[in-house]
């Protein structure tokens, strides 16, 4: 039945794509849009006072060009190609707006943009995919930028997005944290930086940190639905894209940037970071850097020892931006040392210190060929070198991991054709050289990945349809071939499969109804195939299974959405069926090497997950608003009739927000129900309610905009434990934390 449904999906998508690719002909120049460049300029003003608004970020989506207004609210974007585009604005304290812009060749388009202040917190976040179309409401309900990002800025990306509906974080101390979307984490959730894979190993183990510093992050996008398949084939949980902007997207004529200071009491932590963009001849150069230091976390039950963090992060990028497109390069380095807390229950009785380093480069060529059929061509190459070592309390090396990654992505955006819009065709090839050392017996491997994808959007009467198909080929070649008693025949394995997604959206007055059906494909990784070694935190001796096949998922989702001036609502229900869910299963045999541990072998099990998300906001008065979220996911390994391990409980949030002029303040209640549906060796957790307080003030003066945020998390110093915290049995969550964040834009 599922196979038939999938074939129907493929057919429907391919039918819609077909007209674009079966209409060969000579490449015609666009008669309406020759080579000469266009200019977009104007001002941004407040709807009430008519005063100019500085530091408004204006983005032309299709061109991926953005500009920030000066202190007098003025902006000029030059070297643009002509055509019709979608513009968006982002500004702290103001409602984000989206509107069409038409640029005429050899002409200047003047805009007078009026923004409205809003106390509705959700207006800052409940928007569509940043890179998607204006009509692609189905893709995602979440994006963090500006105020929301400042208010929730945490030590990690996972902590920063943890407050959003359907998002949880899996932690093992404050540093190693990774988001979990709708109960799906690890390799089932793609985490990207500027739409590229980071090359870190955070998806493979709970004690591995994500090598992205949130302090200098521009915004965070959560993408679901067909659009997510343009990033990867395993997107049932979704995609979290951290936008850093390593390579400048717009030319600057003066120095611009930001500087951030952050301090918090719960770990005596502080962080300093900033970015600067400046003109350098024909190039625009962007530099950013940050440093973060923190001690061990304080909890209501005492200190969670060995949880300090010391992180340095720096990058430099340059771009030549012209009317024909953009060429750019960026390089960066991320180094972090952090501790895993002692856990007598979890196999690290004295804790472990982890040192990791990630170097990376990105080279980009973006070309606007000024053809009717081809809007743009992007060629992006990324390289990263990742090293990570785990030092035990004795000073000895426990394990180390190294990976070299190359990825090349070529993406073409096609011109409109009939009802089809925003069609994209892309090719991605990747190579990974992976090796381990220390107390792990995973062979070194070379991995090759080739992917081809299509994405398109169509307006069919009152409906908006999005569709995507992605073909994935993956090859894993061990450096040494051998027969393992436990793992099987360690040899080259090849996997290929297709992922597809289709969504339909219907606008009925102020309501939007929609649904998505997605098939995903995830080949097993080297750890699931060939690894062998003790996993002390799981009380298991885990062995791979060289015969594993790829994991496939079928997800369906229905949603209702309403977004009005004085209220907004979002409600969705979803079901994800995963065939061949890769999970270590107890064989009932003791390990020969570690007779104190049972052997857990990776097997493919059938899994069902069902869940719902609800969020809304209401304007109670001119200055006061109420907002809330609720999310729940239920999961079961159907072949065993047992719960899926580490599934988040029912979680929710209720916030009362006051905003007048440049000042805003909020009272936020976070709550979760008890979780008693647990896997083997997993302990239950009680429900909790936690109070957070926050206040923010904006000052625009002398060409600078200052943002000061003060927040008190867990204001009542409540002792509570989150279910996805791997060291929850050692200590509760952090106690009262007073956090001060200062950011200046110039």
């Amino acid at each position, binding site marked *: 039945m599922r196979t038939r449904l999938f074939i129907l999906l493929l057919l429907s998508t391919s039918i819609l794509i077909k007209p674009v690719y079966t209409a060969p002909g000579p*490449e015609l*120049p666009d008669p309406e849009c020759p*080579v000469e460049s266009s200019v977009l300029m104007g001002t941004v003003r407040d709807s009430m006072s008519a005063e100019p608004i500085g530091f408004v970020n204006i983005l032309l989506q299709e061109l991926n060009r953005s500009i920030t207004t000066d202190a007098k609210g003025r902006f000029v974007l030059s070297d643009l190609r002509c055509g019709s585009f979608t513009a968006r604005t982002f500004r702290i304290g103001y409602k984000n707006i989206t509107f069409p812009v038409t640029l005429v060749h050899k002409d200047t388009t003047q805009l007078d943009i009026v923004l409205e202040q809003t106390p509705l917190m959700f207006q800052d976040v409940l928007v569509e995919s940043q890179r998607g179309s204006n009509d692609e409401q189905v893709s995602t309900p979440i994006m963090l930028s500006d105020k929301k990002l400042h208010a929730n800025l945490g030590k990690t990306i996972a902590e920063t997005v943890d407050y959003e509906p359907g998002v949880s974080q899996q932690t093992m101390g404050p540093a190693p944290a990774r988001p979990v979307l709708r109960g799906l984490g690890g390799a089932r959730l793609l985490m990207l930086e500027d739409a590229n894979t980071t090359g870190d190993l955070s998806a493979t183990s709970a004690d591995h940190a994500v090598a992205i510093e949130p302090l200098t992050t521009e915004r965070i996008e959560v993408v679901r639905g067909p659009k997510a398949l343009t990033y990867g084939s395993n997107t049932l949980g979704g995609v979290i894209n951290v936008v850093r902007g390593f390579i400048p997207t717009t030319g600057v004529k003066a120095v611009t940037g930001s500087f951030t200071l952050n301090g918090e009491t719960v770990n005596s932590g502080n962080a300093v970071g900033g970015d600067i963009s400046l003109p350098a001849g024909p190039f625009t150069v962007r530099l950013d850097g940050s440093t973060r230091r923190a001690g061990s976390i304080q909890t209501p039950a005492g200190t969670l020892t060995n949880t300090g963090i010391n992180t340095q992060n720096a990058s430099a990028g340059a771009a030549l931006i012209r009317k*024909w497109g953009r*060429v750019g*390069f960026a*390089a960066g380095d991320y180094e972090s040392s952090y501790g895993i807390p002692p856990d007598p229950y979890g196999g690290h*009785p*004295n804790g472990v210190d982890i040192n990791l380093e990630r*170097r990376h*480069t990105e*080279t980009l*060529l973006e*070309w606007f*060929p*000024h053809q009717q059929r081809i809007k743009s061509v992007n060629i992006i*190459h990324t*390289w990263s*070198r*990742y*090293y990570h070592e785990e030092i*035990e*309390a*004795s*000073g*000895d*090396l*426990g394990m*180390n*991991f*190294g*990976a*070299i990654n*190359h990825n090349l992505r070529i993406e073409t955006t096609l011109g409109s054709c009939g009802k089809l819009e925003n069609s994209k065709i892309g090719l991605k090839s990747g190579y990974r*050289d*992976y*090796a*381990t*050392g*220390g*107390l792990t*017996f995973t062979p*070194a491997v070379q991995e090759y990945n080739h992917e081809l994808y299509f994405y398109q959007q169509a307006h069919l009467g009152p409906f908006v349809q999005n569709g995507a198909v992605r073909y994935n080929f993956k090859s894993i070649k061990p*450096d040494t071939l051998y027969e393992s*008693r436990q793992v099987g025949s360690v040899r080259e394995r090849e996997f290929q499969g297709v992922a597809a997604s289709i969504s339909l959206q219907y606008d009925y007055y102020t309501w939007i109804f929609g649904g998505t059906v997605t098939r995903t494909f995830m080949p097993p990784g080297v750890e699931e195939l060939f690894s062998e070694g*003790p996993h*002390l935190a799981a009380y298991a001796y885990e062995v791979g299974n060289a015969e594993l096949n790829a994991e496939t998922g079928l997800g369906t989702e229905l949603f209702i959405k309403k977004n009005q001036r004085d209220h907004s609502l979002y409600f969705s229900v979803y079901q994800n069926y995963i065939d061949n869910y890769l999970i270590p299963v107890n064989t009932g*045999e*003791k390990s*020969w*090497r*570690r*007779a*104190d*541990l049972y052997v857990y072998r990776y097997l493919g099990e059938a899994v069902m997950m069902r869940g719902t998300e609800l969020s809304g906001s209401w304007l109670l008065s001119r200055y006061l608003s109420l907002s809330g979220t609720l999310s729940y996911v239920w999961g079961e390994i159907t072949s065993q009739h047992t719960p899926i391990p580490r599934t988040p409980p029912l979680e929710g949030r209720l916030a009362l927000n006051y905003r007048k002029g440049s000042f805003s303040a909020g009272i936020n209640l976070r709550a979760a129900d008890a979780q008693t549906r647990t896997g083997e060796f997993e302990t239950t957790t009680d429900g909790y309610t936690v109070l957070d307080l926050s206040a923010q003030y904006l000052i625009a003066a002398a060409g600078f905009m200052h943002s000061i945020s003060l927040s008190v998390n867990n204001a009542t110093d409540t002792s509570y434990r989150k279910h996805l915290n791997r060291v929850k049995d050692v200590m509760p969550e952090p106690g009262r934390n007073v956090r001060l964040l200062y950011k200046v834009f110039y």
Partner: protein
Amino acid sequence: MKIINTSKWIILFSVITILFFTACSDDSNPVDTDESDHDHAEAVGLIVSLGDQELVSYKEGTVTGSFAITTGQTTDKLTIQFIAEDGDVFTPEGDHYGFVWEVGNTAVANILQEESYGTWEFYISGIAAGQTSVIFKIFHGDHADFVSPEISITVAD
């Protein structure tokens, strides 16, 4: 149709090529699998011997034999060796390996070493009549590379 003139393309191509190769100049994996990163005792079994006599063995997941002594007596010097995955018998070498044992009930029997003994040599002392067991471990730094199953010790009157 020429969008950009030829010289610009050459410059662009040169810049990208130079940057690409600059980026990839450090393209060796930071973990060198030829080095001794896998410096861990890869034992899957053990043999405890009294001189040339094999007293106890743990091979392919099965323990054969047990220790038996009488109250107030001690055994002669026993030697423990380990069995690798390929069947080779070896003794861990280097200061970073430690020999650790856990006796279930030290009121019945205990394991001791004399100063003259090597790291992997020991004797068993029978303290009181009864039954207990011992687990042998190869410790490496802060963790055990090898942990044996329980091996029975019987102390008779």
